[in-house]
């Protein structure tokens, strides 16, 4: 059942800064499937320049946050893709992603998210460049050792791990006969390396993103070879031929252990006006200001220029780096907000525009005026049950020579 091999132009992975008590990467208080998808795409080398060629998006996860919501609108706006771009949300695992990467045509952006734990997201843009993926064989047996019904909060795990390992994974792998597979996706790393002796490229997570994580690893290392993707009784074998190692990127900041001071209060606490939300959406999620005919840039958008009151305005993208002008850390409990949290007014680089944003991916209260950082998409709040996305200030990591590891992150 061979298919015509497809080429991935570039790919990348993103893992959150935060870790749980066991050291596994986990979502930050302002992250979800949507924000991870955006970060994964931004991890793809050259994405900003290539974004214009995306004409289809497929987002794959086993743990969607919403079955009905606004994931597509947020991801498209945050990545600067045309709002009309066809966007498919799929439920699937590592084997599905490998099949997708072997069959999706040029211009498709594949996003795969494992919200954790461990949490990782991957993105692959189909085109010319990084590697060629060819599908060889697939096998299926119905063995739902791990399952989840819609509405359940956690996976249901059939209490026989040997059944899964021997009659599920090992049988499927034997039938696939992946002699010499160097990559295994969908099986936790330790088990993967025991089951497939030749496996070198594995992933800490076991969901759809693990497939992209394994491929990213191989491409960065310039390693050709076979890759298997496995989930319950389903397994897929592809071969990967690396073309350009520089076309794969991985975003991984120094870890901070996430320790919650107090549990978040009810998300319904903050009222929302959906009309107000919608009016602000394009500017807020696209991070777009308005420039007047005299060249002044205003953000958030206003009917008249802030400087000269000129009403003739056009949209302009804003710089995504800046410096803290002032800040304050809120330590009192605020209904509906995870705390403590730090708010900063950030002066954007090479611009007169300042933005008000919360600090992300860093321990609150440790920042200072003049700290430099980036503006990244995060879920700023949940209001009346509806997630509200915007930009947060992510401080630059200290340069080598300064203390790099902040291992006591109280959130």
């Amino acid at each position, binding site marked *: 059942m061979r298919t015509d091999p497809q080429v991935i132009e570039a790919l990348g992975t993103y893992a959150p800064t935060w870790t749980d008590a066991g050291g596994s990467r986990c979502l930050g208080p302002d992250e979800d499937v949507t924000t991870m998808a955006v970060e994964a795409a931004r991890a793809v080398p050259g994405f900003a320049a290539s974004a214009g060629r995306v004409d289809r998006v497929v987002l794959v996860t086993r743990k969607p946050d919403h079955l009905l919501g606004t994931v597509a609108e947020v991801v498209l706006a945050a990545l600067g893709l045309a709002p009309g771009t066809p966007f498919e949300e799929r439920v699937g695992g590592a084997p599905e992603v490998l099949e997708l990467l072997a069959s999706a045509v040029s211009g498709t952006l594949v996003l795969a998210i494992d919200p954790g734990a461990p949490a990782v997201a991957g993105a692959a843009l189909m085109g010319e460049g990084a590697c060629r993926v060819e599908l060889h064989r697939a096998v299926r047996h119905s063995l739902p050792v791990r399952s989840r019904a819609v509405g359940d909060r956690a996976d249901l795990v059939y209490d026989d791990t040997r059944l899964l390992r021997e009659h599920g994974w090992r049988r499927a792998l034997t039938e696939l006969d992946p002699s010499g597979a160097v990559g295994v996706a969908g099986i936790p790393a330790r088990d993967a390396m025991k089951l497939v002796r030749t496996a070198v490229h594995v992933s800490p997570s076991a969901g759809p993103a693990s497939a992209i994580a394994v491929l990213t690893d191989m491409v960065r290392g310039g390693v050709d070879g076979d890759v298997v993707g496995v989930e319950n009784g389903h397994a897929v074998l592809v071969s990967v031929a690396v073309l350009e190692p520089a076309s794969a990127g991985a975003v991984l900041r120094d870890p901070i252990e996430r320790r919650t001071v107090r549990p978040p209060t009810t998300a319904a606490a903050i009222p929302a006006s959906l009309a107000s939300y919608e009016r602000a959406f394009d500017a807020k999620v696209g991070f777009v200001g308005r420039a007047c005919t005299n060249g002044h840039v205003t*953000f*958030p958008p206003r009917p008249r220029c802030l400087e000269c009151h000129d009403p003739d305005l056009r949209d302009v993208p804003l710089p995504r780096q800046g410096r803290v002008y002032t800040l*304050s850390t809120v330590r*009192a409990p*605020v209904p509906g907000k995870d705390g403590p949290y730090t708010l900063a*007014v950030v002066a954007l680089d090479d611009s007169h525009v300042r933005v*008000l944003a919360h600090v992300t991916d860093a321990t609150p209260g440790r920042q200072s*005026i003049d700290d430099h950082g980036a503006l990244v998409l995060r879920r700023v*709040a949940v209001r009346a049950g509806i997630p509200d996305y915007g930009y947060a200030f992510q401080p630059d990591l200290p340069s080598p020579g300064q203390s790099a590891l902040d291992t006591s992150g109280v959130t």
Partner: protein
Amino acid sequence: MRDVAIVGAGMIPFGELFHLGIKDMVSNAYTAAKSSVDKGLEDSDIEALWFSEVGSVDGFPAGVAADACGLIDVPSTRVENACASGNDAIRNAAHAVGGGYADVVLVVGADKVRDTPASATFWDWMSTNRDSAWDMPVGLISPASFALHVTRWMHETGARREHLAQVAVKNHHNGARNPKAHLRFDVTLQQVLDAPLVAEPFGLLDCAPQSDGAAAVILASKDAVERFTDRPVWIRGTGIGIDRVLHAQKPDLSVFGATRKAAKRAYAAAGIGPADIDVAEVHDCFTGVELMNYEDLGFCDRGEAWKWIEQGETEVGGRLPVNASGGLKSKGHPPGATGVAQCVELFEQLRGTALNQVTAPRYGLAHNVGGPTAVAAVTILEAPYGTTH
């Protein structure tokens, strides 16, 4: 424009007043103001009413106030300008009297902050002065909103948390002697520094309490004054200032632009400058804001406020006593009432009848700053004729 004077002023004690509704508070404040009028005042003397209320418990504010005071046969208008509501109500009333539209009017300020449960009202109160799409989601609570200014100001002037704490010590000491104050206890510098942090750099004792309360003043035109008193306190200048409503769009967060504009207008109307002010009630919703006020109101030069508090210049007995009443910090802060209550204190100070009396003041200044730190009001009052400095 005719001269306008305050001929009566009174307030109820501020606090957590679960036993009093808005109508009770308004009526009691009016009674207190009436009883302070030297030659007496009848309800029939009042020709119009202005009511400063930021919330609207029990609904339609203008009617609630008129009805509670038994003044439903005269015009009644509700003024809302965030924390500047009280002084703005006085400004509007003074313009009406000065412009000849009425001779004797009543201004009442009141707010019931404690009528609804704390968390339910949290976002309701915030939404009265926050942008729904840009401020609310990030959780820009009031202490954080002011802290963004104070942090930048501290960075530029070298002030430290100890200077902020000294404001709390001073104002609590003043308020401990004030039977109308909400928090009547002294605090030490260390207690203020050790209090749990609310929004850095403010700890719990750097923040004014949530209070219910009401205050009232009675204004009269120059010709009508002698019916009521031989010792009127003159309204010499009023001013309102407005700033950008989003913090990221204010050009300089180390000042309150609204305060500077309001002060400039009030000083110009009064024909005096900051050096002429002998006693002041300024907006200390948070301790650091009082220090910024010293500079924005021109009491001291830019960057000198921390020296002023260190040297005790604003103590009663100092160069320019500030918040002899205890300020918002100790006296309390029902937003609609605060500006009016400041003028009640100044009325007493300028007539020499205040409890925490400043020595023979001639000019007094009341100041508020609020909203998304986008509005300020200043009122300048002068002591009765014949009072020397």
